[in-house]
């Protein structure tokens, strides 16, 4: 058993070490942190600053969370506390289905619908001209992709709260909404945070859909109407293409390692919080 549980951890470690080994050529030329925080990206001149890509990732992720968290929490609260049983049972499989759709589908849908929406309606509304291939479009598509994760984990968390606890609050003359606010959300807070972090870590790594709508411009985005270039998109677009450029290969490996570290960090955080919540509920 112990050996088996160690295998995945070992594999991740192996991948990480492998990536860093392959990134060695570029790390030998420039220190790690200057690569991380430099904005200059011109591979032909030997500049491999990863900062625009890291920021592209963070921007898209941030936008998607701002959009996804309130909507999915309200949905989860509605489904778990207000909706009749039949609605809940009807909706749950649909949410799980959405979570399982291949991300290309979301990407195509994003290109067909979200990009024009941003370019023709939302950007002009704010007085900005934009092609529509923007951080905002990426964020919207990503938000829709992480809804199901946050909703289904939150539903899980809410259903772990004993019904009798809600009854206790109701019996004191609290309204349903007061009960949700003071009891359900309070009791489930840690679990909700874990749900968000889980959604977040999915958002960091999600490639296809975002790549198709975000514009892929290696420049620091200054607003949500700028194009962006998240790390996963950088890897997917360029790996195997530009390999004749010196050090390009190593720079991409470094980018992959950074992405992996970020995703790992958030996953571990989510697990830790979930374990604490479960222990508390026990």
């Amino acid at each position, binding site marked *: 058993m112990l050996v088996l549980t160690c295998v995945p951890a070992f594999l991740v470690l192996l991948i990480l070490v492998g990536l860093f080994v392959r990134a060695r050529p570029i790390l030998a030329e420039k220190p790690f942190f200057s690569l991380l925080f430099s904005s200059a990206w011109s591979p032909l001149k030997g500049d491999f600053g990863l900062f625009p890509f890291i920021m592209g990732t963070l921007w898209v992720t941030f936008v998607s969370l701002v959009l996804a968290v309130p909507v999915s929490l309200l949905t989860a609260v509605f489904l778990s506390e207000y909706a009749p*049983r039949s609605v809940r049972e009807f909706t749950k499989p649909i949410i799980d289905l959405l979570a399982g759709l291949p991300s290309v589908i979301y990407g195509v849908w994003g290109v067909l619908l979200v990009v024009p929406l941003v370019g023709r309606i939302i950007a002009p509304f704010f007085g900005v001209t934009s092609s529509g291939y923007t951080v905002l479009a990426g964020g919207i598509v990503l938000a829709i992709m992480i809804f199901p994760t946050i909703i289904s984990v939150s539903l899980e968390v809410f259903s772990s709260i004993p019904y009798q606890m809600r*009854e*206790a609050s109701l*019996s*004191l*003359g609290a*309204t*349903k909404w007061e009960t949700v606010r003071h009891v359900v959300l309070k009791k489930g807070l840690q679990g909700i945070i874990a749900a968000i972090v889980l959604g977040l870590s999915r958002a960091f790594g999600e490639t296809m859909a975002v790549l198709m709508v975000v514009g892929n411009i290696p420049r620091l985005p200054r607003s949500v109407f700028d194009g962006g270039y998240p790390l996963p998109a950088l890897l997917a677009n360029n790996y195997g293409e530009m390999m004749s450029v010196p050090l390009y290969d190593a720079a991409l490996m470094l980018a992959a390692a950074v992405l992996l570290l970020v995703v790992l960090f958030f996953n571990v955080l989510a697990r830790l919080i979930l374990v604490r919540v479960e222990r508390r509920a026990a």
Partner: protein
Amino acid sequence: MEIRPHLSVQNLNVYFDQLRILKDVSIDIPDHKITVIIGPSGCGKTTLLKSLNRLLDPLDGVRVEGRVLVDNVDIYDPRTEVTEVRKKMGLLSQRPQPLPMSIYDNVAYGPRIHNHVDKKRLGEVVEQYLRMAGLWEEVKDRLGEPASRLSVGQQQRLCLARGLAVGPEIILGDEPTSALDPQSSQNVERRLIELKEEYTVIVVTHILRQAKRIADYIAFLYLGELVEHGPAAEVFANPRDPRMRAYLTGEIS
């Protein structure tokens, strides 16, 4: 006009989906007495108790027919505000359910929601009800701690204090001692006996000895039917219904 009791149940029928769980139950609950509802498992005791403060409402597939009068108002009348009904009753459940907050905040929960206590007096009010529930001495130095850290017996008394702080007229207890050790059970029983001076108390139990210790009035439910009810001494001394007799001798349980 005859003086009506606080709480009167008239022709109450409760259905879960199509199943009839309570069958034409009618009973006047005497004021300032402890009424104990007894009966075998699954006969509808919890359902009857919950129907008194409309805790059946949120459940799916429940239908309630008949009337429950509290102070001469039918609580199932659509014009009756459900939170007002529930404010008149404090509930003790089978397992104590402290809310996910501090000891102090648990007791202050009701007063805060209903805004019926001056903010400056809240501390005094919390103390007053913790004393009434016999918990003050044990918790006065740790009011800020999460309520979940208390022992189960203490939690049950906290729930009592929390219920009293809303200012109810009636106290409902659904097997309030079944999760407690004998000592804590005794403690809670003593509180209930003290409280009947000021409140009308209704307790569900399946422990016959407990019923004999605390009951002034007995209601015996069997398969959803109110088979027999009356003053405890009378019912225990000579039960009229054969099913009641069988239950008392332990033939059905």
